[in-house]
C-alpha cells in the first residue's frame, strides 16, 4: 500500500501535467486540443515524449530563450513540459517520504514513470503505420523505436528519480 501511493501519484502527475502543458501550448499556438487525441499515434506520444526526450537541455534552452526574448508563454510551457517527469518524480517521492526507505521510494517513482512510458511505446508500435517517418525521437523503424525509447526512458527516469531522492533525505536501506 505504501509503495502504491507514490506509484499512483507519480503516474497521475506525469500524465496529468504532460497533457495539461501540451494542451496549453497547443491552444496558445492556435491548434486544436482535440487533435492531441485524433489518432492512436498522437495519443501515445503524450505518454512517452517528455520522458524520452532530453528534458534538461530543452528546459535550459527555453529558460535562456525566455531570458533573451522575455516571457513567452509557449517557451514557458515547453520548459515545463520538458521537466514534467521531474515534477512527477519529486511529488511521488514526497508522497512516500514518511512511509518508506529510499530504495522503495526510488522503485515506486521509477516504475511510476516507466508504466505510462511502456503503455505509450506499445500504443505507438501498434500504430506505427500512421506515421511515414517517425522524426520526433529519430527512429525510422519500430524495431529500433521499441528498445531505444524504453532504454532512453529508463535512463531519464533514473535521472529524475535521483533528483527526487536528493530532495528527501532518508536512509538508503
Amino acid at each position, binding site marked *: 500500500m505504501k509503495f502504491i501511493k507514490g506509484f499512483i501519484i507519480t503516474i497521475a502527475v506525469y500524465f496529468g501535467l504532460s497533457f495539461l502543458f501540451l494542451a496549453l501550448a497547443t491552444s496558445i499556438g492556435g491548434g486544436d486540443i482535440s487533435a492531441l487525441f485524433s489518432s492512436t499515434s498522437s495519443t501515445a506520444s503524450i505518454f512517452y515524449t517528455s520522458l*524520452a*526526450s*532530453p*528534458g*534538461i*537541455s530543452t528546459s*535550459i*534552452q527555453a529558460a*535562456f530563450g525566455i531570458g*533573451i526574448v522575455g516571457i513567452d508563454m509557449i517557451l514557458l510551457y515547453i520548459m515545463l513540459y520538458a521537466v514534467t517527469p521531474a515534477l512527477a518524480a519529486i511529488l511521488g517521492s514526497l508522497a512516500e517520504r514518511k512511509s518508506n526507505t529510499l530504495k522503495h521510494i*526510488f522503485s515506486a517513482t521509477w516504475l511510476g514513470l516507466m508504466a505510462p512510458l511502456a503503455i505509450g511505446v506499445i500504443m505507438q508500435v501498434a500504430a506505427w503505420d500512421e506515421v511515414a*517517418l517517425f*522524426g520526433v*525521437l*529519430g*527512429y*525510422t523503424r519500430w524495431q*529500433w523505436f521499441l*528498445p*531505444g*525509447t524504453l*532504454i*532512453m*526512458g529508463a*535512463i*531519464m527516469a*533514473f*535521472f529524475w528519480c*535521483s*533528483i527526487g*531522492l*536528493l530532495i528527501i533525505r532518508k*536512509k*538508503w*536501506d
Partner: protein
Amino acid sequence: MNRLAKLVITIVSFIVTVFVLDIIAAAVIADDTIGLALVGNFPVSGADPALPLMDRYFQYMGTDTLGWLTYLFSNGAQNLELIGGGAIAVGDATGYIPILMEFHPNSTAPQFFMPHVIGLTKLIVPLIVPAVVSGLISKTTKQALINTFAAFLIIGVVASVLNIIHVYMNWTSLGWKFNATLQTNPLLVDFWTNYAMIVPDQTMYIVSTTTIIMVFSIVNGGVMCVVSALSSRKK
C-alpha cells in the same frame, strides 16, 4: 581514510579516466573523418586538417594548456541526455542509442558505428568510474553519496572557474581555443553560437556557460550518487 583523502581519490579517478579515454579514443579514431568531427575537436591554429587525433590532442595540450584543463574538468558537466536524444544526429537518428541501432556494423553505413561507440564511452565512463570508486572506498552508503556529490560539485566549480579565466584571457583570440570545451556538452555550442558569434558579450557568455556547467555537474552528481550507493553495498 579521512574524508578529504576520499574526495581527492574520487576527483583524481575522474581526471585519470578522462585522460586515459582521450588517449584510447585518439588511438582508435586516428584520422577518421567522422570520428574527428564527433570527438576530435582539438584543432591547433593553422594545423593540418588531416592531422591524426593523437597529434591534435597533444598539440592542443601544449599550445593551450589552460584550455585543455578547462576541457578536462568540463567533462564532469557532460550531457547524459545524448544517450537517447539531443544534438548528436546522423540522418534521422538523434542520440547515441538510436544512431548505434540505425548504423550497426551490418547496416548500409557501418562507418558511423565505431566513432559513436567511442563517443558513448567518453560520455558515460568518466562519470561512472568516479562514482564506483567513491562507493568502493566509502565505509557507509551515506558517505559514498556525500563523497560522490561533493566530487562532482567541486569538478563543476573548478571547470567553471577555469572556463571564466580561459574566456577572459582568450576572448579576443581565435575561436579554436574554445572548441575542445564546447564538445563536452552540445548546449555550450548553442551559447557559443548565440553570444560569442552573434552578440560578442563575454559576460553573458560566461553566465550562460557557467550555468550550464553547474546545472549538469549537479545533475550528474545526483545521478552518480545513486550509482555509488548501488556499488557500495554497505549499510
